[in-house]
């Protein structure tokens, strides 16, 4: 079996009595697109927040490239090479699109007290940021203030920033939600291209068609537990998955 890039072992997060994530074991292999699916409240975003360091796990461990990352702060997880987007976009509103990306590009400097005094308006980083904007198709809007962009472009901006940080692993939280049909097709192409360039991708997705199209492998969560894992076809036929999405036969969800 191939060595995993990221692995969670019995990962759990409880909020009081609520077991938002309950003993999830997940492996992400280098170069794959892994989909994290599940109905609302299944614990997908909590999983993301655990991996990216926003939450500390109640129990269980997270290993990234054989190093424990649970318990690290978000900025340390980012420095390890994991980038993420947010379900509700979080642009740096009053900064320009280019400045947004540059703020992410500064990651190689933020750790050193000496390196943060250099100027960000000149230098090779600027060129690099522009090439990432080119990649996501925002190059023409580089000087536009981020809070003037429509949602589709903001999602691209989120991906551009995450792409710079996530040299190894990219976590995409519902990047397709709220997008128009043609935007979805463009974003699908973009994500495939990113994978081609050697970045591993973990994505949360509600749009079934997109998930089935894009993912190599899918993990389905419900009530904080893994209920199914496999390739898109087998997931589509999985009874537990159908039950979780459409409701149990005997009204078990109502209980």
């Amino acid at each position, binding site marked *: 079996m191939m060595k995993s890039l990221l692995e969670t072992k019995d990962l759990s997060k409880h909020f009081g009595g609520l077991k938002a994530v309950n003993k999830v074991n997940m492996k992400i292999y280098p170069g794959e697109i892994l989909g994290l699916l599940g109905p609302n409240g299944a614990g997908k975003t909590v999983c993301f927040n655990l991996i*990216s360091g*926003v939450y500390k796990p109640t129990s269980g461990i997270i290993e990234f490239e054989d190093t424990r990352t649970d318990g690290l*702060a*978000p*900025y340390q*997880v*980012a*420095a390890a090479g994991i*980038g*993420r987007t*947010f379900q509700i976009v*979080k*642009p*740096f*509103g*009053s*900064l320009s699109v280019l*400045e947004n990306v*540059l*703020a*992410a590009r*500064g*990651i190689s*400097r*933020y*750790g050193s007290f000496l*390196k*943060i*005094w*250099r*100027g*960000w*308006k000149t230098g090779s980083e600027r060129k690099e940021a522009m090439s990432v904007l080119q990649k996501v198709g925002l190059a023409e809007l580089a000087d536009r203030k981020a809070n003037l962009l429509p949602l589709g472009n903001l999602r691209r901006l989120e991906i551009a*920033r*995450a792409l*710079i*940080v996530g040299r190894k692993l990219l976590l995409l939280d519902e990047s397709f939600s709220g997008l128009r049909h043609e935007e979805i097709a463009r974003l699908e192409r973009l994500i495939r291209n990113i994978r081609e360039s050697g970045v591993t991708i973990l994505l949360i997705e509600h749009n079934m068609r997109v998930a089935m199209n894009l993912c190599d492998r899918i993990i389905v969560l419900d009530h904080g537990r893994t209920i199914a894992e496999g390739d898109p076809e087998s997931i589509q036929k999985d009874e537990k998955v159908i039950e979780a999405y459409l409701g149990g036969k005997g009204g078990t969800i109502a209980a």
Partner: protein
Amino acid sequence: MSSYLITVATIIAIYAIVVCGLNVIVGFAGQISLGHAAFFGIGAYASAILTTKAALSFWAALPLVILISGLIGLLLGLPSLRVKDDFLAITTIGINFIVEAVFLYIPFFGGALGIGGIPRILLFGVKMRGTAFFALCLVFLALVLLVCWWFTRSWGGLACFALREEEEAASSMGISPVRFKLLAFVLGTAMAGLGGALYAHYMRFLSATDFSFPLSITFLGMIVLGGMGTIWGPVLGALLLGVLPELFRPLVNYRMLFYTVILLLMIRFQPAGLLGENSIVRKVFSFRLLGERT
């Protein structure tokens, strides 16, 4: 120029230095601070004590004063940065009251009598007073503005802007919130300390009530008026809120009322300040020399 005008101008220049420091904390890093007068006071008292009790010259004391102010800013910043927004505002008010009380009740700081006999600044054997002192303040103000300008163009500054805009997103990009907030805090309080030192050697007498909470509000009013997060906003704010009360002398008893009305009007009509984004001044002049809000 008459000595009255010089006095007003000097105080305005000193306030501008202090308010530039507050702008680093509030405008650049987005951390509310309602206790900036405390750090102004710490600089003033540090310089007063070093030049009277330790008999250092102003110039020998100055680096120490800036260092002390920055370090105390760091120490007081550490616990206060565990809280956010309104809670941070309350905590910083608390810091202001505590610092004032320390000056007032601890005999070492002169107690209620304050500290007197602070020497004049000597530069090349010349005693600084009047116009010369004002010129010296302008030089320091220029240096402070240069540091601010540099900071807005540095990666550290960009990290602070990102934190100001979206802390969660910023930290997912490798920006440690604590580290960069403290950086802004130290820079800002060090500038307040510099202003304090100049104030001490201008007034030559200090009392704790010179640095009480209403002054912190005045400082905040200055950046709100001038334009938070801009380079020149603090200078314009200090100038306006320094000159207007002098012009309206009869209003002086109602100064706080006056500030409140100005603040309310600003919040209603010019939320980003006179030099901020989409402001009247920018629309009229629309030239970028005033310093872009980055």
